[in-house]
Every structure is written in structure tokens, then in C-alpha cells.
């Protein structure tokens, strides 16, 4: 413990790491939150879209040699369109055949599970089951005696920009306001004339696009593999719970918090216990503050 404070470099590294991974968690969680808050379905395959976003960026980067940043919007757009398609084909039918919300939730869990399976195995088929990666901005930067890797700093900055941009966009654009209205007061929003017919698929697509963005960013700093998605799904769920369902700001703060907790926690224990740590945090939150840390 003393070593931690004796070495500002280590401390800063853990903080940056925590903020970085936390920022990514925040984006994934916000995407999931949008879908769940809006459509009341939790897409269990959400992590797989993150994985595909990562692989799209990876493939294009390796094929063209260009900076992966170019492919960030490509991943986002691809996932958005994929989301629209999925909503139109699968989820719309699901809501048509379900007599009530609970049944729909149950069915969409099973469908999501099927999707998860399809996507993971398709990825293994296309890219193979091993870890992949590419080098991007691996140089070091020095700030006041502390060393950082350039790519991590960049991704951290981008993650923050994205999250902030998303929150602002939702707050100040007309579309954003409509979305927030639907999430917070669905009946009222419909009475006022906000159209679920367009908003639902839009939000679904947007949620997936955010997953794609996170995956893309992740590919710039970590190795990727077809099975990388599930742990992020679980952390996204934890973040949503921490921050409160429906609250995007909550997801952002919750994500960062969890990232920091993990960063420090894993340092003191072991990387393979990361998931145990997440689960413990989750169970504790659910036992003591089930409405989220910020609920009144």
C-alpha cells in the first residue's frame, strides 16, 4: 500500500487506467441504458456488438493500414444499421406476439441469447478464436514525471468527449429531448405525440452504435477476441444499476467509479479476479442501494 503512494507514476497510472476503462464502461452502459430505458428490453447480446465493432475496426485497420480512428464512425454506422435491421425483423415481432411486458422481456432474453451465440460463433468462423490486435500510437508521453502510453490517453479523451457529447446531445437537441421524455415518462410522451414508431428503432440502433464505438476504442488499446463481449455486458449492467436505470448521467458517473474501483482493486489482488470484484460490487449495490447510488 505504501508503495502506491511512494510512486506517483504508479498511482497516476492506476487513475488513468481507471478513468479510461471507466469511460468506456460509461459509453457501453449508456447504450444499454438507452435501449432498456426506452424499449424495456435488455439486449443480452449487447457485448457481442461491442466485439464486432472492435473487429470491424481491426480488420479495416489491418487491411488498409490507415489509422483506426477513421474506422470509428464506420463501426458506429454499421452497428446502427444492424440495430435498425434487428429491431425491424426481430424485436418488433416480439412485441407483437407478447401479451404483456414480462413475457416480452422473457422472450427477448432468449432471443438475445440466440443472437449472442450466432454472433460469437460467426466471429470465430471469420477471424478465429484467438486474440488479435494491432499497434496504434504505442509511444509514451511524459507529463510531470509520470509516463503514459499515447493510445490510452487518446482513448480516454475520446471516451470523455463521446460521453459528454451524448449527454449534451440528449439534453439540448429536439430528438434528444424526445428520447429522454420517452424514457422517463412513456405515457406522457405518447400523449404529447412523440412517435414510438421511429424512436424505438432509432434508440435501438443508437444503443448498438454506442456499443460499436466502445468496441472500436477498445481495439485501439487492448487485444481483442470473439469472446470479449460478455464481461463487458455484465459490467455495463452493473454500471446501469450503480447509476440508476434511465439515468445517462448516472451511467457516466457509475462507469467511471467502477473503472476506478476495478483498476485499484485488480492491482491489489489479481487480474483474473476482476470479474469476482465486479460481481461483489454488484451484489453489494443490489443489497444496499438497489435503485442506484444516486437515487433520492
Amino acid at each position, binding site marked *: 500500500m505504501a508503495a502506491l503512494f511512494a510512486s506517483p507514476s504508479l498511482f497516476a497510472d492506476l487513475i488513468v487506467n481507471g478513468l479510461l476503462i471507466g469511460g468506456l464502461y460509461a459509453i457501453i452502459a449508456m447504450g444499454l441504458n438507452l435501449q*432498456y430505458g426506452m424499449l424495456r428490453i*435488455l439486449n*443480452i447480446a449487447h457485448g457481442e456488438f461491442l466485439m464486432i465493432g472492435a473487429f470491424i475496426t481491426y480488420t479495416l485497420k489491418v487491411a488498409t493500414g490507415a489509422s483506426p480512428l477513421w474506422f470509428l464512425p464506420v463501426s458506429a454506422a454499421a452497428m446502427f444499421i444492424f440495430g435498425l435491421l434487428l429491431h425491424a425483423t*426481430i424485436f418488433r*415481432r*416480439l412485441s407483437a*406476439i407478447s*401479451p*404483456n*411486458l*414480462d*413475457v416480452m*422481456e*422473457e*422472450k427477448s*432474453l*432468449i*432471443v438475445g*441469447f*440466440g*443472437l*449472442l*451465440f*450466432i454472433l460469437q*460463433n*460467426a466471429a470465430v*468462423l471469420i477471424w478465429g478464436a484467438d486474440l488479435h490486435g494491432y499497434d496504434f500510437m504505442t509511444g509514451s508521453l511524459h507529463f510531470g514525471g509520470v509516463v503514459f502510453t499515447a493510445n490510452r490517453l487518446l482513448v480516454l479523451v475520446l471516451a470523455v468527449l463521446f460521453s459528454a457529447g451524448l449527454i449534451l446531445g440528449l439534453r439540448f437537441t429536439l430528438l434528444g429531448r424526445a428520447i429522454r421524455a420517452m424514457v422517463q415518462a412513456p405515457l406522457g410522451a405518447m400523449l404529447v405525440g412523440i412517435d414510438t414508431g421511429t424512436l424505438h428503432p432509432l434508440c435501438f440502433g443508437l444503443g448498438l452504435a454506442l456499443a460499436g464505438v466502445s468496441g472500436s476504442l477498445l481495439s485501439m488499446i487492448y487485444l481483442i477476441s470473439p469472446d470479449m463481449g*460478455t*464481461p463487458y*455486458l*455484465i459490467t455495463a*449492467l452493473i454500471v446501469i*444499476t450503480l447509476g440508476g436505470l434511465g439515468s445517462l448521467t448516472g451511467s457516466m458517473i457509475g462507469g467511471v467509479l467502477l473503472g476506478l474501483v476495478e483498476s485499484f482493486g485488480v492491482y491489489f489482488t*489479481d487480474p*483474473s*479476479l*476482476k*470479474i*469476482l470484484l465486479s*460481481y461483489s460490487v*454488484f*451484489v453489494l449495490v*443490489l443489497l444496499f442501494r438497489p435503485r442506484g447510488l444516486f437515487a433520492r
Partner: protein
Amino acid sequence: MRTATWIISAALIVCLAALPSVASTFVLSLTLSIAMYAGLALSWSMFSGATGYVALSTSAFFGLGAYTCAILLGSWPWPIVVAGGAVAAALSALILGLCVLHLRGTYFAILTFGVSELLKNLIMYVEKSEFGTVGRLMMGAPSLSVIYWTVLALAVLAAVIYWLVARSDFGAALRAIGSDEGRASTLGLNVRNAKIAGFCLSAIIPGAIGAAMSVRWTYIEPQIVFNPFIVFQTVLVATIGGPTRLIGPILGAVVFGLLQETLRLNFANYYLIFLGVLLILSVLYVPNGLVSLFSSNRARPLKRASSKHA
């Protein structure tokens, strides 16, 4: 149940039990697999089909059973080893249930799915720290016939448990939870206890099957036995067969077992994807499973439908 059904079932079981002496290894293996799918799907349906809580923990139970077997094998007689798997799984279900069963369905599903990953990492960590290596050798495994009879017996047991629960007060409680959990609680049902009991009960057979099947590998490691494909198969079989009737998972197991063989032979690379598509199509177009195609859509036994909360 009618006498005719009893007789046919008994005859069928006797025939199946006699299989090792007449059938080829291939047929025996196939029947073994079908029995496994049936056992897993019946246990899953008993709880998830009735309550609507989609539990994705089968891989975790199976893996725990397998590891328990690896630890006990050689030192203890076979029945104890298998029972040990069941106990380990049931205990884990108890702990998990206490932690997550008060949550709404989606959280429950995702968290139970992650438990398999959690256990995998945990065991790998422990093994690396304690032994330096990961994985265990399976020494002193019984013959294929013994494994077959064990799994067959477990499948029959799963069916018996399903049947007993379905016609008991406990089964009515589980179905009421699936129909309107809040309502059931205002009528005096301790919903939490009922769910935990049901969940633990649903872990017993998967744990035992995990123990029994693990010896088919000569060497196991967490990666192999905590495999999400197991829970996927379980959900698929239960869903295509129909989880709310006894014959559903059994029918699903037979169909799936045969399908799997054909697919694996002809479309080795794509068949997993095909299975995923099959699951989705099944939910969207045959929501009550194949059984619903054969019977009229009456309320016997019960699909759950209504609201879980006010």
C-alpha cells in the same frame, strides 16, 4: 397419468437400459447425448418454464459437477461422485439465488449467465496459485455403459421430479410466480423462498450430469467444462420442445440430438450459427414449442402469461 402412459414409459426405459448390450458405440453415444439434453432441459423447464425466470446458469452447474467429479474420482465410489456433483451445484444455486433471485428477470438472466465465467476464472486462479497448473486428469473413469446408465437414470429422475413438482402445491406456486408474482405474495406465498427452492432443485440434475459426463474427457480444465454451449443447448432444447409440458423437453432432446448429428456432419463450420437461428425462429414463430403443434391450445398444463407486477 393414465395407465397406458405408465406402461409405455416403463417399457421404453427398459429398452433404453438394455441398449449397451445391443447397440453400436455410435448409437449408444447418440442416445447418451439425447438423455443428457433431456435431463438438462427438463430441470431447466421445471424452474424457468414455470416461473418465467430465464436462468442461464446450467453451464455453471455442469462445470461444478465436473470439477467435483475430478476431485472425488478414484477416492470415492461412483454414486457418491455423481451425488457430489449434484450437491455442489445445489449449494452454488443456493448462494447465487440468495444474491440475485430478488431481482427482476433480466438481471437474473444476465447474472446467472456470468456466473459460469466467474467460476471459470476463480477456479483457474485457485489452480494456478495452489498447483501451478490448470486442469485435472480424470483417473479411474468408469466404462461407457456405466456412464450411459447413470445419465439415463438422471434423465428419468429429472422427468420424475418435473412431474412431481408440476402436480404439487409447489408447482402451483412456481406457476403463480410466473403468472403474477406480486399477486401470489399477497395471497400468502413467500415468493423468495419458493424461487430459491425451485432454483436449487433445478441445479441438482445438471450438477450430477456434469459429474457423470466429465469422465468422457481424459483431461478437463475450466475452459472446457464451463462452456456456454451447454446452457445454450439446454435453452434451445427446452424452447423448441416446449418448456411447460413434460414431453416438451424430451421431444426437443430427441429432435435436437438427431439434428445435431446431421448438422455436424454436413455443415461442420456453420451448424452452431444455424442453431442460434433456430432458437430465434423458435421463439418468434413457435413460442410454445413443438408440443403445442400436436395438442390443442387448451390451458392444460399452463402457459404463463399475466403481469408480474402492479
